[in-house]
């Protein structure tokens, strides 16, 4: 299956790809996969090693919560003041949007996710939900337990699908995923230019598309589009300020778009749905491919739930320099508790590094755009005034 017909222009093909995770397109690939008699596993966490899911013959499909404002069905299970992504993801499950899922998996990354998985297990929607153990720190002891956790996932997938995951197939999948990561890295490399050929919202569209499509199809399409993207031009009102955006569970490009419409150029992100999804490769030459997979996932740029906040801040500062950013905008998901705590640690580091930083609460679905735009516009004005 191709993304768009071959006679389409490259721009049309790019549009189709980057809009794959819009609600009207989102389930297309999963349903097509199901038509072939294959299974789809919904993923609730970027730490679940997707290579294993693919090696078991399933499509790893990142669960995007409903983008509708109301989540009345989830509200029965989850109070208002809990992680909005988890509530909207549960709403998607309960309202039948995701009835095609054969299974779901996630980690106990934090209490919200743990309890979301508990609820899915209790209500048996989808029919099978798997909770995977993820340590919150990376060291010799926790890594060994994480490797075991990855092996447990392998066994679970084998039991679920009846497919034996061979080392050969796993290595093949690692190759596919590393290719995807490399291609996305190339796209992000283009964003270092003075006039980046894609917007931040488009970049988020691409990374979220990657997580719901058969990865080989995504790779082929992106590879064909890359030469076009290298020469693509987007009209910019001004080339500065260049911003890095932070956030978690941010999958609605509208949030990035509003920052760009406020007058900034978003050239890099620290999103679990963006750069952190594809950053760092699995070491393909490793003798032990499971361990190599485990290392890549546990050591990639971390979630706010991880203990290494200083390293996370250092990684963001490094990106700020590499991408020549003038400041950082964090759109912190409301009631995402770890982000509320980490915010204070980030301020300390960014202030020390002399990087302007603003952190504003947002909903999961696109909301309060006017208020957010005003805050971002004020931040941009401050940066521009400082530059003068």
């Amino acid at each position: 299956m191709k993304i768009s017909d071959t006679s389409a222009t490259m721009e049309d093909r790019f549009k189709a790809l980057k809009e794959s995770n819009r609600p009207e397109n989102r389930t297309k690939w999963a349903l097509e996969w199901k038509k072939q008699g294959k299974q789809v596993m919904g993923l609730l966490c970027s730490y679940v090693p997707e290579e294993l899911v693919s090696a078991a013959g399933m499509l790893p499909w990142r669960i995007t919560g409903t983008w509708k404002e109301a989540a009345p069905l989830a509200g029965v299970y989850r109070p208002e003041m809990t992680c909005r992504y988890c509530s909207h993801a549960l709403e998607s499950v309960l309202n039948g949007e995701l009835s095609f899922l054969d299974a779901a998996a996630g980690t106990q990354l934090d209490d919200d996710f743990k309890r979301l998985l508990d609820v899915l297990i209790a209500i048996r929607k989808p029919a099978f939900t798997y909770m995977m153990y993820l340590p919150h720190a990376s060291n010799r002891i926790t890594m060994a337990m994480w490797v075991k956790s990855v092996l447990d996932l392998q066994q679970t997938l084998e039991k679920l699908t009846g497919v034996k995951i061979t080392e050969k197939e796993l290595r093949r999948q690692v190759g596919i995923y590393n290719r995807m990561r490399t291609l996305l890295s190339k796209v992000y490399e283009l964003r270092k230019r003075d006039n980046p050929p894609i917007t931040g919202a488009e970049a988020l569209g691409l990374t979220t598309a990657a997580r719901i499509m058969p990865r080989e199809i995504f790779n082929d399409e992106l590879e064909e589009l890359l030469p076009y993207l290298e020469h693509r031009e987007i009209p910019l009102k001004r080339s500065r300020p260049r911003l890095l955006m932070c956030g978690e569970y941010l999958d609605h490009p509208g949030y990035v778009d509003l920052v760009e419409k406020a007058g900034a150029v978003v050239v890099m992100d620290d999103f679990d749905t963006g750069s952190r999804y594809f950053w760092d490769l699995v070491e393909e030459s490793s003798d032990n491919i499971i361990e190599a997979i485990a290392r890549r996932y546990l050591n990639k740029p971390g979630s706010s739930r991880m203990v290494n906040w200083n390293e996370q801040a250092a990684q963001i500062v490094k990106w700020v320099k590499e991408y020549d950013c003038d400041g950082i905008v964090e759109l912190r998901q409301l009631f995402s508790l770890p982000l509320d705590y980490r915010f204070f640690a980030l301020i300390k580091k960014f202030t020390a590094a002399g990087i302007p930083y603003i952190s504003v609460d947002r909903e999961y679905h696109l909301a309060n755009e006017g208020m957010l735009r005003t805050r971002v516009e004020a931040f941009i004005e401050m940066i521009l005034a400082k530059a003068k």
Partner: protein
Amino acid sequence: MSNSSLSGLAYLEYEVARCNRRMQRIKDNPDPSKPKSNVLLYELERDFRMEQLEAYKAGKPFGLGTQTGPLTRSLGLVPWDAVPAADRTHGKEATRYFDIIRREGMPEHTCDRCSILIPMVLRGDFPRPSFLATTNYECIPIFMANLIVANLLDIPSFHIDRHFKNYKAKGKEDDELLKYMTDQLGEMIEYVEAHVPGCKYNEDMEIEWQHYERLYVQQAQKLWKLKAAIPCPLSGRESFREFRPSSLYPDPVKAVEYMRQYVEEVGERVDKGLGVAQPEERLRLLWSVAGPFYADPFSYLENMGVAIPAAEMTIYNGWFSGRESIWGDPWKGRKLSPLEEEARQMDFVWGRAGEAWVQTHIDTCRDLHLDGIVYFIQWGCPVTSALGKIVADTVEAQLSIPTLFIEGRMLESSIYDEKDFNSKLKDFVDICLERKKSHA
């Protein structure tokens, strides 16, 4: 605590004075309706705060090894208990801290205790620790609160990560996960000895502290049986008094003696058939998670003939009922090493997958002959609030008893509406009475 007293070690000084005042009041005007053992309890609390004060002034290391105590003390640390300390700031004091939290952009949407401890420590109202273990043994907000304190004050810290599996479950003990935790504790000890001056692990001391912890919990197990008595001899406030391990106090022998005396007194009430619900006990409820500590819904319920024999919080009822292994219990027929024991006792309920939290409600309701559950939806506590419906559905299906969800904050009282709160309780009591009648 008045605003003017808040500087330096104000919290500790205030707590010492409060305990002394309470003891003096009991001495001057003994209230026969209150437990005599309260004097010992206030002495324990005062001695602990004095120990902290003196240690802090003398520059002795303060810290948090794990949440369970014996290891902290055997490392040579005076326990740093900011989370329970924050619990005592309810009412106006909590509102004052929340004003700081909001003004300075500190975490506001998390549970009250894990918000309040941040300004308490950062502003110097509570001592700065010399070491902090961060761990997800229980919940993410406690983990994060300790992590941010360590981060902002550049305090040496060490993370201990636990699996969500119930690895100490009786009959299903998991050696691999016990080793996982034990190995991490071993690394932590090396880290503390290398990074915190004055700290040196003393295994003999740990054995001793664990011994007293066992004796202390064994007394609490006797209390559990007394709680099952009809009418219930304990007030709701007594039921809700959070369990403080004996290792928190500088004198564990006195702690065990306090618990022994208290259990004896409750036993006397049972023997005399004394109950707290007036004019007679009509209903028995379980109060789960937390409550508005600045208000007194318990007296309101007791005056309607409703007893609250137990509160459901984390692992405590598991220990009290004997369903959870306590210090010194065998592990697959063998005795655990002191460090293994510490590792076992880090398997708290909220750190586990949800099934354990659901099951403890069912067990408690069965043990204590309860007719309903008041489930407090504590803001910023997803580990409990996002599982309430599953608890309610399961309890309804298995025991045919109803659950009331009632939302609020445990310490910050500005959103509390007593009339509204009590009217919900009243309606729920009526429902439970109807249900009880239909069961009969």
